[in-house]
């Protein structure tokens, strides 16, 4: 691994209402890695993402980001992070183009200067023909694409994706998975992909982090050494099936351990 982009060391997070979401979470994301974060619902996955994005701060432990130093030196520098949330979170009053332009607009870049990047990001997700459409005129999958385009427009080093396709049907979902992989192969940003689907985690990632039920921490780490490029045939390969089995077992073990602890 050439460099570590993000490192969480022994992170704990307790919310104001007393909920302990994370306890002793340790994990890293290296350059050009595609890390899948897998865990049961409510185990603190989104909290990990928010911590990395700087939207909330840890109660214990520390979060190191490779770009923290640079950002302090240059206050309005672009954070080299793109975020795709569970919902598309598009501004309903703005066209697709303006939605994708938003990150650049907030950095003070004028329309003309940003136009090239915005058009390129839209083209990458196949939405060039919908630049002037409004979010409500798009299907669920297209909204998600617009959301990905917005995350890519600043050319981030790290892309954070929080169960981006959970609400979509199976066919759209696997097509968008392939799209994300194609983009990743081309640009090699790092990615943290949150999901609760074992199959999705293994198919996409180079490494799977398996989390325990709440309070969440990493209980297992499984390297995914599937052949590149991954495609439909990958899903039927024996290695894929084997890895899915191992990840599933890790997940079940974590759930069983947690149940035991709570019984004692």
């Amino acid at each position, binding site marked *: 691994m050439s460099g570590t982009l993000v490192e969480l060391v022994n992170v704990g997070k307790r919310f104001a209402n007393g909920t302990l979401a994370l306890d002793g979470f340790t994990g890293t994301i290296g350059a050009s890695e595609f890390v899948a974060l897998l865990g049961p619902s409510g185990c603190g996955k989104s909290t990990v993402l928010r911590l990395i994005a700087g939207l909330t701060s840890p109660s214990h432990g520390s979060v190191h980001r490779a770009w923290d130093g640079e950002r302090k030196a240059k206050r309005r520098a*672009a*954070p080299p992070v793109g975020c795709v949330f569970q919902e598309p979170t598009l*501004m309903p009053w703005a066209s697709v183009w303006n939605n994708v332009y938003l990150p650049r607009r*907030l950095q003070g870049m004028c329309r003309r200067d940003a136009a090239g990047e915005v058009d390129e990001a839209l083209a990458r997700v196949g939405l060039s023909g919908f630049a002037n459409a*409004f979010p409500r005129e798009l299907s669920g999958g297209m909204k998600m694409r617009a959301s990905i385009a917005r995350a890519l427009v600043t050319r981030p080093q790290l892309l954070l994706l929080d169960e981006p396709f959970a609400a979509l049907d199976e066919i759209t979902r696997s097509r968008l998975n392939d799209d994300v992989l194609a983009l990743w192969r081309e640009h090699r940003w790092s990615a943290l992909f949150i999901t609760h689907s074992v199959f999705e985690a293994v198919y996409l990632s180079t490494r799977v982090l398996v989390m325990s039920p709440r309070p969440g921490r990493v209980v297992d780490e499984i390297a995914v050494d599937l052949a590149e490029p991954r495609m439909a045939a990958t899903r039927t390969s024996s290695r894929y099936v084997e890895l899915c089995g191992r990840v599933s077992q890790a997940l079940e073990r974590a759930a069983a351990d947690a149940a035991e602890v709570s019984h004692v």
Partner: protein
Amino acid sequence: MSEDVGGDDRRRHGRLSAWLQWLAPIAVGAVLLGAWEWLVRAYDIPKYMLPSPSDICEKFSAETHALGQAWWVTMQTMLLALAAAVVLGVAAAALFASSRLVSVSLFPYAIVLQVTPLVAVAPFIVLWIGWERLWLTQAVCAWIVAFFPILSNTVIGLDSADRGLRDLFQLYGATRWQRLRWLLAPSALPYFLAGLRISANLALVGAIVAEFVIGPQADRQGLATVILVSQLSQDAPMMFAALALVSLTGIVTYFGVHGLSYMLLRRWHETGRKE
């Protein structure tokens, strides 16, 4: 052809209901006016008790100039008050949104402004502002009633911005001003417009009530003065003509604001959705 029937049918149905939207209230009005006219004639009701619609129309054409002038005076008061309500209401709401402390410490006093009976305080406002500037007094009175719906709606609107979008703006390091301009203001727009719809007619009512309370003046005679004078001189048709003008103004204002919100929101907000 047969495949198209469903869509065509629906379209025709949509157009019909759009027509109905205009025709139905006009038809209701025509029926009511006709019944009124008939009642007055059939029972020979004297003019001073209830003038017939035709009497009122006659008065309208005889007194077009006087009525028009009075209407314009009232409109000036109303528009001034409404403009002040919009500017100050939005500014106060933005201030409230910028600081929780400001918001909790000032909001109760905005409510005081809303529930204070205009009739009670108007004479004092005259004293404070001075007899030389009665037009300003009237506008201030009308402003008092028009201010609150805009303030409270805009405050709710600014608070309604989506959580995910707030996170997004924070992630990209948006400044306060950027957040207000690109996130909070558009989120608040539908709420503000709903407030404006209420305030516009409250400003009209406020302008008339203020003139009533302050009393007729020599130089600036609005619709309230016309109503007062016609009551004193028992000119019932004139009074009804003035009332009709108030009603028409209210209806036009309401649909004017309605049209404005439709234009601003139709591309993205649920209220602008046609089907």
